[in-house]
């Protein structure tokens, strides 16, 4: 469905991504993990079409991507709601150019708000929403145009542990309900193993993919099961290996 082949992205002399490959199947949930600076956000921005200055190929359903489209929804690290619009209006903005009647839009927006559990808060301004609620609204905004793939850039990174766990469950529920492919960028290994069907491990200097680990655990997943632990260890191992082969960099001398 989504294919990234041999993609390299340079910022001047700095190579953020080198010869990167990634495949996401129809309806698949893929997580990308890696230390900060490994190019995972860069990769996501390339897939979103926000950044078009790369070498290589990115195809969605066999067609090379050009710029942004509503077919690829994106949720940023912070909710990025427009503070002057109510929750409803914030989600409605995504349908400004959709070829739908006003009544149809209304119906779709209401359904999307219900899906993320924010019914009753339609008229609230973002300043009045909690971090978790705001991020749910951002997810609803990304989904309301019915994209075929949803790109999530550490969307839960800034939330507290409890809200985070709850939203992870919600993401799974939404994923099953909508049947949409998802790419989740995260630095949380447990989150990656809990949510995804495939974990892509990346490493830095320059950013590249070091491992693809298939997560074939049945749903619902139990974070405390031994299989879960084994997979977590495997991902940690891949993260560790990739950083261990590098020569030790001296950060400072005493």
């Amino acid at each position, binding site marked *: 469905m989504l294919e990234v082949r041999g993609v390299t992205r340079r910022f001047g002399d700095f190579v953020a991504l080198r010869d990167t490959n990634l495949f996401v199947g129809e309806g698949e949930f893929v997580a990308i993990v890696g230390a900060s600076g490994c190019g995972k956000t860069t990769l996501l921005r390339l897939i979103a079409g926000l950044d078009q200055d790369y070498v290589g190929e990115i195809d969605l359903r066999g067609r090379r991507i050009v710029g942004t489209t509503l077919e690829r929804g994106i949720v*940023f690290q912070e909710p*990025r709601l427009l*503070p002057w619009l109510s929750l409803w209006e914030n989600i409605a903005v995504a349908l*400004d*150019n959709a070829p739908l009647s006003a009544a149809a839009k209304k119906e779709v927006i209401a359904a999307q708000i219900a899906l993320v559990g924010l019914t009753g808060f339609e008229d609230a301004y973002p*300043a009045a929403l909690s971090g978790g609620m705001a991020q749910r609204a951002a997810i609803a*905004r990304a989904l309301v145009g019915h994209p075929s793939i949803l790109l999530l850039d550490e969307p839960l990174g800034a939330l507290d542990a409890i809200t985070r766990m709850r939203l992870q469950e919600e993401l799974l529920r939404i994923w099953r309900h909508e049947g949409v492919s998802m790419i989740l960028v995260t630095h949380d290994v447990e989150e990656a193993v809990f949510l995804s069907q495939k974990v892509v491990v990346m490493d830095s200097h320059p950013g590249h993919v070091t491992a693809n680990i298939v997560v074939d655990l049945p749903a619902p997943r139990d974070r405390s099961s031994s299989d879960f632990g084994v997979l977590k260890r495997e991902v940690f191992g891949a993260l560790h290996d990739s950083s261990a082969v590098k020569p030790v960099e001296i950060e400072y001398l005493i």
Partner: protein
Amino acid sequence: MRGGIKTFFAEQRYIGAILPLAIFGLWQASSSFGWVEPVFLPAPAKVVEAFWYMLTRQDLLRDIRASVFIIAQAFFYGALLGIGLGFAAGLSRRVELFFGGTINTLRHIPSVAWIPLVVVWLGLGAPAKIVVLAKSIFIPVFLNTLQAIRGVDHNFIELAQALKLSKWQLICRVIFPAILPVVMVTLRYSAGLSWALVVIAEGISGLEGLGFLIFRAQNLLMTDQLLVCMVLIGLIGYALDRLLYLAQRRLLRWQRGFGGSYA
């Protein structure tokens, strides 16, 4: 009103009345006890009398109307042009480079310095004053609109890109609301400054308006009429600002900033 004066002032909405009442009391006292010569500071009652005289015999309303008419028109044109050109320059570097230098030079010529020339061109009537005042409103509105657009969070621009908003939608949905707080403050600020300038412009050249009356009263040593004009100028200026403040509060009701109590 249970509890008398103390509870009256404990109510927050009356707190703003304390200072004016005190000033008024001092004024009354200074004339009652003869601290100041009446020709320098006439008694409040004399001023009220003068106000009534001007209203009924000298067509004061016409002068008020003349001054308000000038500021209203100047405000309309100046704000419209300032926001319009500010947007044009904010959205295009080319327009900014085209206008920037000229406007930044012109703004260093104070509005008062424009009055003599513009009066020569347009005469003593309202148009000359409207032009000068509109210019004095235009400059800060233009500069602040432009600067505010430059300061719009880039993340929101990126979001608009991801949502495939057109340029027009970007302006209406993102840029305009984002800069509105700055624009509103600038409008209030420049409206206040320009109201003061109306008085000066009418004083320098003109045959009607509150500014004309105030300078005439000074020449004739009619301190009571002078004070009437001062109070009216103050009250009208206050009303003007209140109007804009209410508009601002309505337009920016999404904002939740520091409300003023901290405990």
